[in-house]
């Protein structure tokens, strides 16, 4: 699917890179940069956020298990084996900060729009390799872990049903 005609994808991706870097550096104290490395798959933690209103956007962030664990450690600054109960909170909050900041930077603040509460779920890429058509995918690396982000510019309802 192609992005809407009036959408400057390069601008979105440039701002996404800057936003990811800002969120990880300021809030978690770690560097997160675009990377050619891709997630190895397996169990993924998927964070979905919708922007609704005069503009409709859906965003998905995928953390593989090592990345999700690293995100919890970065948040808590505690190295514990009991990290899984906090993983939804950690990846959901990272998603909220990344997409909320992107929305603030890129969408016309005069237009009414709202950001959903992040929905976190688990997905097994091996079992379900088919993924919805997406407009753009970007991979990042932090603490030797990969983070995958997909921007989908279809209306939220279309994404939810695919």
């Amino acid at each position: 699917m192609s992005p809407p005609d009036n959408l400057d994808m390069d601008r979105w991706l440039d701002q996404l890179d800057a936003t990811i870097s800002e969120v990880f550096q300021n809030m978690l104290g770690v560097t997160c940069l675009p990377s050619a490395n891709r997630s190895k798959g397996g169990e993924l933690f998927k964070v979905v956020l919708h922007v609704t209103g005069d503009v409709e956007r859906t965003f998905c962030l995928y953390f593989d298990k090592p990345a999700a664990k690293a995100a919890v450690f970065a948040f808590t600054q505690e190295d514990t084996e009991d990290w899984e109960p906090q993983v939804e909170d950690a990846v959901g909050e990272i998603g909220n900060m990344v997409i909320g900041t992107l929305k603030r930077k890129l969408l016309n603040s005069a237009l009414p729009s709202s950001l959903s509460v992040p929905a976190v779920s688990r997905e097994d890429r091996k079992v379900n390799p088919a993924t919805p058509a997406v407009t753009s995918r970007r991979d990042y690396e932090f603490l030797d872990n990969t983070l995958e982000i997909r921007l989908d510019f279809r209306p939220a309802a279309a994404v939810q049903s695919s």
Partner: protein
Amino acid sequence: MRTLIVDDSSLMRKMVERALRLAGLDMDEVLQAGNGEEALELLRADATNGSVLNLILSDVNMPVMDGLAFLEQRQKEKLAQGVPVIMITTEGNEAFVRRAIAAGAMGYICKPFVPEQIRAKIEHLL
């Protein structure tokens, strides 16, 4: 300083508290609430027993009752009047700022933040 932090993320509540302490602010007691409704319950209890808050920091985007609805209800019930409220948000657009100020917020901090930004905002308000 007796402070209330409202955020649905327990990790973010801990992070805000850590940022307040890193910024060198004197935090005698930190109360926490997971959404606006829980925060209102704490304010109602304070009103009953005469406890006094010095500062409220509230997230905006929360389930059950969001930060703006919390502020509006607090205003309606005349709870913790005169206590400075700072909203912590990722958005900070014009519509949000207008509504937050109308509901009694004295300022807002955009996430992602660094501890010094919190310190500067609080020092400016208190």
